[in-house]
């Protein structure tokens, strides 16, 4: 529609054409080179037996053998999958609903809401690595707060019975604030007349929320879902700071990393697991794109 009216302004001189091309091509090449090429590379490598030492041309295609090996003879794999699932479960079933709940309460704009809101999102500005580091003050065996209060001697970060849960508590501390912010923005965007209409119809606050407000926030819900899944999938920093993801804190992301950067560089193994991560995340990336680009189509 705009094309005819503004016919003149889309006309480009030859210099302009070069400039515009550069403006698109340079960033695109960077992203293709450092994100998409590696993504494809991980997938391709996962089907080969490249040991990372010889030239890459010496690699042979071995089909699904890496995948088969990972799931059958690589002991930390299934614990890592389990830990990632627990991670997702806790964030999704506890931290995310709690963030939503806080957002709903804060959205009532009671006195002091701003202060509470600020306090709750404070951890969001901290890196997860630092979060892991700070919580040591609470968890450490000899001087940590918990053991000081209870007189216990549990090494919360070291003992494999507890360390995953300890890490999850710290991760949730940050996640709640983030989700709270997202939902608070979402709630402010809900058309107020909807609530009024529900009230006129005699719905109480709870019914209004679950039947009217929550469904209206579908785009945000989708985004929160994606954020939660992807954060759980790429959880890394926190456990790497604690013990490089060992001894009860194995995650797929840490296994990939230790297989590549560590002494034993097992490219095939690492790539197979990396491909699994890509596969899972791509489903949720697709959901994300679908919702965020819906209005632009």
């Amino acid at each position, binding site marked *: 529609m705009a094309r005819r009216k503004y016919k003149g302004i889309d006309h480009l001189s030859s210099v302009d054409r070069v400039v515009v091309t550069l403006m698109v091509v340079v960033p695109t090449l960077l992203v293709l080179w450092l994100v998409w090429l590696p993504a494809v590379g991980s997938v391709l490598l996962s089907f080969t037996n490249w040991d990372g030492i010889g030239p890459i041309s010496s690699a042979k295609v071995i089909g699904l053998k890496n995948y088969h090996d990972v799931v059958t003879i690589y002991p930390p794999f299934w614990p890592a999958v389990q830990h990632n699932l627990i991670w997702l479960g806790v964030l999704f079933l506890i931290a995310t609903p709690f963030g939503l709940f806080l957002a709903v309460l804060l959205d009532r704009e009671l006195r002091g809401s701003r202060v509470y809101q600020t306090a709750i999102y404070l951890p969001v500005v901290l890196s997860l690595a630092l979060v892991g580091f700070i919580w*040591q003050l609470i968890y450490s065996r000899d001087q940590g707060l918990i053991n000081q209060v209870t007189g216990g001697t549990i090494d919360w970060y070291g003992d494999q019975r507890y360390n995953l849960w300890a890490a999850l508590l710290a991760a949730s501390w940050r996640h709640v604030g983030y989700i709270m912010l997202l939902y608070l923005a979402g709630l402010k965007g809900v058309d107020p007349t909807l609530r009024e209409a529900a009230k006129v119809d005699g719905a109480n606050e709870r019914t209004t929320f679950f039947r009217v407000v929550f469904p209206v926030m579908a785009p945000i819900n989708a985004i929160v879902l994606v954020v939660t899944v992807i954060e759980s999938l790429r959880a890394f920093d926190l456990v790497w700071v*604690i013990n490089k993801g060992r001894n009860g804190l194995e995650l797929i992301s840490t296994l990939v990393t230790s297989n590549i950067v560590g002494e034993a560089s097992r490219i095939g193994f690492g790539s197979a697991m990396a491909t699994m991560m890509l596969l899972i995340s791509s489903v949720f*990336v697709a959901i994300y794109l679908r919702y965020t680009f819906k209005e632009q189509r």
Partner: protein
Amino acid sequence: MSAVVEPNTTAKALLGKSGRPKPVGGGRGRLATQVFLAVVALIWIFPVGYAVLGSFRDYDYTSKHGYFSLGGFTLQNYKDAWQQANFTHTMLNSAIITVPAVLLTLFLSCCVAFVVARFSWRFNLALLGLFTAANLLPAQALLIPVYRMFRAITVPFWFSDSGTLLNSYWGLIAVNVAFQTGFCAFVLSNYMKALPRELYESAVVDGAGVLRQFFQLTLPLCRPPLAALATLEVTWIYNEFFWATVLLQSGDKFPVTSSINNLRGQFFTDNNLVAAGSVVIALPTLLVFFLLQKQFVAGLTLGATKG
């Protein structure tokens, strides 16, 4: 990770009063809500507050009297933590990485956003998708090829003293830029699309080429989203841990956040040092939190205000 939120919300709505009438609730319910929120807020700032408090306590004093005592206040922990963790060095490294990475990210995303918003080409949406999706992929899944590529690419020594892109600041900066450009381009393109096209029309009539339109018209008008994104990106890139840890293997190049890896071992025996170290590491982001809160929240939640 970033998210893009519901349109029609503004930073003002989130941080100030909205025009919506307050829901009427019972006085008691309101009080209970307030008490509950106050308790949650206190619990939430507790870990940071506890770190700040502990950072000022003398180790010998707290180990003798416990943390529930008063007294033994000192600044010594900061001095010790600063020296032992070599914060002068790592802070400088963080700046060397963060500043160029943020500037490049913003510049490149402005370029992409400008073209996407200014010209209605068919591949625009695909292009934005390519950038936005890149921001969401798990970094670890891309590690192997990036690592091997960087190791194989040799660069002159004036560019990186390691001789390859691995273990060089520029390699790390490039990775950060590649990952962050997507989100920023998406946000900026939405903002730029809302700019009136008449502006460009008069600029073209005045004979301004694309470059002049970009630098003299679009960029000055994009100050608000650029401020928000700059705040957010400084925080994120300063906080970036994974790539810095794996791509910079020599400890002397580590930025602050990655140096945490080594600090745990170093401060192992003294929690008050851990506390002081945490406060120092958090300080740049806490400054953002207190001074630029509006920009940070706007960048985080209102990424996609579509007009």
